[in-house]
């Protein structure tokens, strides 16, 4: 996230790397360092999750042999399951298992956590990506309407700001009461009843691939409310950052030059402002995409969306720690990877970013 800072100072001053050491191109060095940091982060994440799993309530050995087993049987199971090994040995085994796709067995569903995640992840990805695209559009409208002083834009921005101040579960509730209860326009929750033949497990995408217009419309119909609820907060976050950098760039000398040579406001914006101003907004968008994978938990629960967030919400009350750990690892990895990819894209798009 220091990249964002660099980006902002880069905007203001146009800093250049002072030295180029070892003949490696600064962009390449930045890419390598960023990838290294991502790998390190994933290990830290796994270490945190593993440490938590050792302090989580419930004795795995006792769960293995049954509640009525004798203490000797529990001790024997403990030794057999390797629970007596040193912390680092157990951690290494945990990472080894996780890397080969073994995250243990859910106490609630009795299925392997990996299988559960594979079943529930596509619906979440579909919801989050839809909401993300929506958030980018709304955020861009928020920023551009403000920077260009569109008439009536202030009202729209005010409404969006107010919505972003509300807890997502309240938005979801109001949405269901109004659009399902009163108007009957949108479903209260769930996904369509399309028998998804694959390959993605996402209804909107797969029905489109199979050319089924009805099923596609149904999928979009079900996506509408949850994705809007999920999109509001990130839209405002991205919109604010974009607005700030648009204002900065619009005040720069080259924009005055472009205006004074007679370009229309639209051409000034498209040709001279947007590309200079979009960097910080991209960073924020990456961060927000990560946040959305956490925020989706509440939204999925209200809308009975058959995704990983609902799986997590159902695991919490019964203290199903293997499932919770699995979701944390997978969504956390998605978060880390997303932010890394955004940083890399930015460095490739604008070499100033890698001049740290």
């Amino acid at each position, binding site marked *: 996230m220091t990249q964002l800072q660099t980006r902002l100072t880069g905007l203001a001053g146009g800093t250049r790397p002072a030295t180029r050491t070892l003949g490696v191109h600064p962009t390449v060095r930045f890419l390598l360092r960023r990838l290294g940091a991502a790998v390190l*982060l994933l290990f830290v994440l796994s270490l945190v999750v593993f440490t938590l799993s050792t302090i989580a309530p419930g004795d795995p050995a006792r769960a293995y042999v049954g509640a009525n087993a004798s203490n000797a049987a529990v001790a024997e199971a403990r030794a057999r399951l390797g629970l007596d090994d040193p912390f680092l040995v157990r951690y290494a085994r945990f990472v080894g298992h996780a890397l080969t796709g073994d995250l243990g067995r859910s106490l609630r569903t009795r299925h392997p956590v990996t299988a559960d995640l594979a079943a529930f992840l596509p619906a979440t990805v579909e919801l989050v990506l839809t909401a993300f695209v929506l958030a980018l559009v709304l955020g861009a409208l928020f920023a551009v309407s403000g920077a260009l002083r569109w008439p009536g834009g202030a009202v729209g921005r005010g409404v969006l700001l107010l919505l972003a*101040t509300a*807890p*997502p579960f309240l938005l979801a*509730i109001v949405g269901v009461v109004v659009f399902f209860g009163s108007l009957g326009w949108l479903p209260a929750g769930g996904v369509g009843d399309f028998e998804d033949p694959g390959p993605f497990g996402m209804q909107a995408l797969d029905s489109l691939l199979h050319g089924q217009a009805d099923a596609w419309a149904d999928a979009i119909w079900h996506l509408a409310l949850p994705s809007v609820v999920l999109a509001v907060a990130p839209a405002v976050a991205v919109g604010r950052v974009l607005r*700030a950098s648009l204002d900065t760039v619009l005040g720069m000398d080259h924009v005055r030059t472009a205006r004074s040579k007679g370009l229309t406001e639209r051409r000034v914006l498209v040709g001279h402002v947007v590309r200079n101003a979009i960097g910080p907004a991209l960073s924020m968008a990456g961060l927000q995409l990560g946040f959305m*994978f956490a925020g989706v938990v509440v939204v999925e629960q209200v809308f009975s969306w058959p995704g990983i967030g609902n799986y997590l919400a159902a695991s*919490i009350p019964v203290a199903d*720690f293997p499932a919770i750990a699995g979701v*944390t690892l997978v969504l956390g990895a998605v978060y880390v990877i997303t932010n890394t990819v955004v940083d890399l894209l930015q460095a490739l798009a604008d070499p100033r970013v890698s001049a740290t």
Partner: protein
Amino acid sequence: MSVAYAPRARIRPGSIGGVALGRPVSWLLVALLVLVTVVALAAPLLAPFDPVQPVGGLNLPPLSPGHLLGTDQIGRDLLSRTLLGIRVSWFSALAVVASGLLVGGVIGLVAGAAGGWVDTVLMRITDLFLALPGALVAIAVVAALGPGLLHTLIGVSIFWWPYYARIIRGETKALAARPHLEAARLAGAGRIRLVTRHLLPGVVPTAVVSASLDVGNVVLLLAGLSFLGLGQAAPAPELGADTARALSQLLRQWWVPGVPGIAVLVLSLVANLGGDGIRNLLPARR
């Protein structure tokens, strides 16, 4: 810089959504903040009924005689429950922000004042925490410790200081380069005196402003965790959990899940507006 770390950082000083604020309005917004704090403090006195005991008919709508906000599925007074819920939410959020400010403040101040390898090590650790998905890991922490308000506060606090550490370190570094620090050093002030008398006072306004703008975020996060069942145990009033428990009544008695949710909205709104007010009144660098 605040733009980089605060998802809800403001665009221009002294404005809300582009509307400029005068000083009287700012004071008014801060007064709102004080009002909510007083209400939260006095909630047990203000609540007309016992929040955990059934006291009236089931699912009475708002504005029913004797029950201003109605009653819930087992006849408990919603106004009383909401007031007590506001108390829990508000002080929990303040506690998380205060602990974040304390930990992040000390780390940022030390890193910024010491510089060198101390700065590097502390900021690497800070970056590590910033790069982890805080809300998600907080859920795992609470799940591992077992549900409960204290555990939720611990889980969130662990991930709520790095943002402050970054801001305060940046502010400290900027201050340290100013001439009055040079003058104090030349006058023979020791390290401790430099930090406590010449750096700390200059950092406080920025710290208070970023903290007050952050309370709303914490209110929303804690309400979300409570909604997922990671807060207090069942009979105790809590805004997020009360909404979650009454979700099935949504289309028949909207007010039972709706009223606590609206209370969260009001808290978050007051926190954000009050933060704007404080920011306008304090001479912090923007």
